[in-house]
């Protein structure tokens, strides 16, 4: 789960990190009164999950009221299009109006899970304000890391090493940067983050340390124990079909192709996409119905797949284990009756209760249905149907 920049700043500030004064607004009028309050020089920033805001003109430095008005009108009135949004872009509903600061230096600080070492790692770099992936590729030595003991958290000497790596020596700045690192680690543990990042953390010309932009991702498995995060959840930033799937315990991810996929198990679902591509087709989605799928859940899965207008054919690939083939067959028959299949549906079933499932499908005699013997046969047939 992701949250907006202003929400990430809120969590950081609560844990003790200094951030510049700011306001969240939803209208141009509110933007102007926020400017009147914060004053002089501000940055107007669109609050969307997608990156590439700066290049798209959705982060603007404003020196007076008129510039704030122009920027706010533009951002709230236009859809933001960037590399990450796709050509249709996304609507902007909220803006962050933040006091602008004179920057002396920019730094990168983050806490992320190290899967190999199985613990959180704090990463800092003097090359702030740019994509950390770029730094990691071009100049990996510029990133300094400290791994955290799951019980001790950030130990004093580790904080000291990290701050020293940033090149900060002046006592008040060392103190302030240490406070920021502690706040970031606190947020990471307190809210079950997958990533907590401040980029950039800046040293102002006046000698202050401030967190300018923050980004956080949270462990989806842990949001059940964080009411605060549940309240921050913004469904308008999610793909509606993906949300609908989640409500039915299905995992659905929309893709660009035209062959809809209905599979049980994440690994098999990914492999089904792979084998479609191998035989010259393009998958329209990833869809894992899960192990404990019911007939109703599977019917909903067909609805979601068929609601994608790009879909020209469907590939059903089930290896019954916990999920039973006859459950899927019953759902297929019900979906054919309720929704109707106007496009071919290639079906490959194997595993638990497969004989019963085959009998059911034979009896139902659905025109659009094309049985397949194995994985390769299924992929070839699906690709041939949409070619």
């Amino acid at each position: 789960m992701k949250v907006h920049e202003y929400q990430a700043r809120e969590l950081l500030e609560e844990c003790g990190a200094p951030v510049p004064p700011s306001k969240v607004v939803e209208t141009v009028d509110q933007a102007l009164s926020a400017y009147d309050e914060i004053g002089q020089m501000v940055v107007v920033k669109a609050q969307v999950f997608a990156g590439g805001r700066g290049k798209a003109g959705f982060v603007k430095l404003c020196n007076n009221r008129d510039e704030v008005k122009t920027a706010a009108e533009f951002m709230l009135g236009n859809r933001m299009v960037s590399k990450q949004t796709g050509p249709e872009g996304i609507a902007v509903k909220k803006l962050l109006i933040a006091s602008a600061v004179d920057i002396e230096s920019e730094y990168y600080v983050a806490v992320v899970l190290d899967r190999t070492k199985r613990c959180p790692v704090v990463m800092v770099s003097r090359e702030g304000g740019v994509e950390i992936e770029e730094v990691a590729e071009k100049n990996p030595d510029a990133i300094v890391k400290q791994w955290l003991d799951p019980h001790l958290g950030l130990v004093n000497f580790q904080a000291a090493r990290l701050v020293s790596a940033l090149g900060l020596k002046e006592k008040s700045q060392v103190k302030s940067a240490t406070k920021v690192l502690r706040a970031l680690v606190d947020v990471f543990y307190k809210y079950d983050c997958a990533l907590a990042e401040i980029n950039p953390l800046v040293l102002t010309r006046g000698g202050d340390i401030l967190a300018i932009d923050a980004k956080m991702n949270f462990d989806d498995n842990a949001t059940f124990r964080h009411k605060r995060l549940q309240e921050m959840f913004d469904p308008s930033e999610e793909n509606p079909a993906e949300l609908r799937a989640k409500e039915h315990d299905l995992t659905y991810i929309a893709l660009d192709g035209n062959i809809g996929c209905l599979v049980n198990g994440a690994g098999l679902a990914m492999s089904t996409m792979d084998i479609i591509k191998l035989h010259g087709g393009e998958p329209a989605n990833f869809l894992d119905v899960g192990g404990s799928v019911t007939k109703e859940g599977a019917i909903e899965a067909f609805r979601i797949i068929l609601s994608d207008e790009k879909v020209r054919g469907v590939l059903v690939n089930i290896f019954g284990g916990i999920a039973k083939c006859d459950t899927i067959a019953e759902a297929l028959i019900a979906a054919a009756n309720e929704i109707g299949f106007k496009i071919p549906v290639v079906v490959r079933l194997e595993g638990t209760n497969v004989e019963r499932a085959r009998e059911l499908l034979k009896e139902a005699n659905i025109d659009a249905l094309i049985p397949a013997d194995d994985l390769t046969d299924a992929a070839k047939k699906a690709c041939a149907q949409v070619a």
Partner: protein
Amino acid sequence: MSILVNSETLVICQGITGKAGAFHVANCIDYGTKFVGGVSPGKGGTRSEHDLPVFDTCHDAVIATGADASVIFVPAPFAADAAMEAADAGISLVILITEGVPTLDMVRARKYLDDKGTLLIGPNCPGVITPGECKIGIMPGYIHKKAEEGSKNVGIISRSGTLTYEAVWQCSTRGIGQSTCVGIGGDPVKGLNYNELLAMYEEDPATDAIVLIGEIGGTDEEHAADFIKHHVTKPVVSFIAGQTAPPGKRMGHAGAIISGGEGTAASKIEAFNKADVTVAASPADIGAEVANVLGI
């Protein structure tokens, strides 16, 4: 021979009175697994629907039954705690089936289990099976084929559930038996990983070849490739799922995500190629590639 579990393994189930626990324990018992009891707080002293003794705590269960292994079906918020309880009670192998366990819970639990010297499989996994001897998990038993002496057998390690069944089925239908199949689970922080299991299969006389089914996300496959190059003499066949997955999206499994250019299928396949691992181009070719490396 086999790794991890065999016909002597005594098993308890934490969460035996829950719907999932009860159902899968029944299937495992049908398969021939030696279940000796279960744990369900507040229900100690009763008997499960399988007529097994139920205990309030893992400690009571281990003292009364002498169990070696525990399979956990308790809900995600309590799953890591259950694993630690099993370790403290002296269980040497914990199989954590539960899906959706918070990652930071697993960070702490894994460290605790390591300190106790307890092996962990999972979370979010199908479990472990030594065909014909012992099935601890949710995999369908009948798709597997017992490893016969005098014939060639394969050991299978996988991050996925149903894709493992696919690979097992492709082997079984070709007459290739399995020594032991281990689903290590799709989460970013887990118990036994490729390298520990590769080392066990390398030592196991019943294993003639190894299948390693990986997927996008993390760098475990790259580490496995390095390990194979230096420590594994038996032939290894691999398949990497998610070659067509878009970056930044979590593909069902919590661990299956390409982020910051790390965890791509291309990087994993390249690492395996360098380690002389046979990488199946299609998930449908895993069985054929195994037959090929075994000279069948």
